[in-house]
Structures are given as structure tokens and as C-alpha cells.
């Protein structure tokens, strides 16, 4: 019993080639990373009176997302080789 891999997730992955998954999900993940980075920097610039550590909330998602995007890119290159 885990919410991490539900039947819908397993069915999607089983029915979709890795090359397609890395585009249809990998690209939105990379975009999300860029959008979060942009939001973080915009807030840093615009809201000069943010409370200390307020921008740390972005790291909660950005760090694991960056790790996963790097894995996707490495796997994509490995699949090409």
C-alpha cells in the first residue's frame, strides 16, 4: 500500500515508452524547475522585506526535482548510447 505508485501511475508507465515519458513528463519537470527558480529570484528582488529564510520553501521542491531531472537526462543519454 503506497501512494507513490498507484495503478494509474503503473499503467501510464507500462503503456508509455521511456523516450515518450522523458518528454511528456521530463520536460514539464524541467520547466517547473525553471519557473520555481525564476519565482524565487523575482521574490528576492521584488519583496526586499521578506522574512529571513522565507525563500527556503522553494528548496523543498527544487532540490529533489533537480536531482530527478539530472537522472532523467543521464538516463536519456544512456538510452541513446
Amino acid at each position, binding site marked *: *500500500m*503506497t*501512494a*507513490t*505508485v*498507484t*495503478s*494509474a*501511475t*503503473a*499503467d*501510464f*508507465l507500462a503503456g*508509455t515508452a*521511456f523516450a515518450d*515519458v*522523458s518528454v*511528456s*513528463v*521530463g520536460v*514539464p*519537470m524541467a*520547466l*517547473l524547475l525553471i*519557473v*520555481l527558480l525564476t*519565482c*524565487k529570484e523575482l*521574490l528576492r528582488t521584488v*519583496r526586499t522585506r*521578506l*522574512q529571513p*529564510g*522565507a*525563500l*527556503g*520553501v*522553494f*528548496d*523543498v*521542491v527544487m*532540490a*529533489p*526535482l533537480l*536531482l*530527478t531531472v539530472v*537522472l*532523467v537526462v*543521464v*538516463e*536519456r543519454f544512456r538510452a541513446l548510447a
Partner: protein
Amino acid sequence: MSGPVAGAVGYATAFALIESIGALNQSVVSVALHGVLIVVLLVHGALRSGLGALPAALAVVSLLRVLSLGMPFAGVAAPVRAALVSVPLLLSAALALRLPGLSVRALGLRPRSWRVQALIGLSGLPLGLLVAQVGAGQDAAGGSLPQAAGFALAWVFAGAVEELVFRGVLQQAAAEVLGRGAVLLSSGVFAAAYVGDGSAAAVAVAAGVGLLFGVCAQQTRSIVGVGVAHALLNAAAVLLWPRLLP
């Protein structure tokens, strides 16, 4: 309903709706919507709007789905995938626990009574039977014993990390806003995360288990027992009950 409470309920409802869209074989759409929700949650969280660390905690839960679909290694078995996804999720939860309003100390990793935590942990065995009855763990049940044991180990890790996310981070953050009602929010979001299983029984069991674990974690101020219970539940559902009661 006060502003922060309405905000908490609204975000939880948005998460449930996006999960429902994913359950309708619209996984790519659901990833995009989870992405939008994460951006909104984190900007809201950075601006400190009376919701404390709750937006960041809900973003961790939304990230769970993004990672589960986006993590490479598509050919691996579901339990191994769950364990792989749990690694960045663990990093996310660890970073969330450094935010103001959350703490590692509040996880109660040194509980007041180990006996009570052991009893809560053992509840995973009968709950595993319930989960096995609604269909979880079928992949491992048909395999060899070493394969099933390996899968069970992967499920154990994934289960423990889920408890850290739902009871350790989400419930702790929700308690700041909702007080004792945090259990309802964490168990509701926990159940919504199972909508993708496509079975009303699975969602009902997840809601019941989430509520039970939430109350246990709240009353004992520790997630040790529920972490063990979820891990044991997964191991029992794939390894023990399918072999004892084929």
C-alpha cells in the same frame, strides 16, 4: 471558516481534484496541474500568509506524484520504483523539516513509551491483511520468495517515507493552522493520493488507515509507531498474507 482554514481546505481539495484527473488516465495533465499547484503553494508559502509551513508541506505531497511519474527507470517493478521515488522525497521532507514551524524534534523519534509505539507498529499486521484483501501486493505474491522479500523491503522503505511525509511533515504543518483537525486534513490528502488506484475500496481503506495513523501520531506525539506500522503493513500485504491465505 477563517481565512487560513479555508486556504488549507482549498489547497487540499485542489490536490484531490488533480489526483482525480490523474486517475482518469490523464497522467500528463495531472503532472502539469501538480506543477502549477506547487508553484502557487510555494509562492504563498514564501509570502507567509497565516498558513505557516502548510503550503510547503502540501507541495511535498504534490511532488510525490510528479516524481512518481517523472522518475526514470520505467522498466523496474512497482515496489522498486516506489523505493527509488522515496529517495528524493526523503530529501524534500528533510528540507521541509528545516522550515520555521516544523522540526525534527516534533517527529518524536525518541517516544515517551516504546511499548505503545510497538503496539501501534504491530497494528500493521492486521491492517496488511485488510490491504491484501483489497488487492495490494499481488505482484509480489506470485513471485519467488527472495523476489517477494526484495519487493517487501522496497515497500517497507516507501511506507516509512510516506509516514514521514503525511504524518511527520503534513500533519505537523497542518496542526499549526487547524489544531486537532490536522488529522482530518492529513488523512483526507492521504486518501486522495490513492484515488489513482481506481478502487473505492482502496481509497476507503487508505482513509481509514490514514485516520488511525493520524490519531496515533497525534496522541503519542511520535511517528515511530505509525512508520513501523505502515512498513509492516506493506511487508505483510505482499509477503505474509498472500502466502498464508492464498
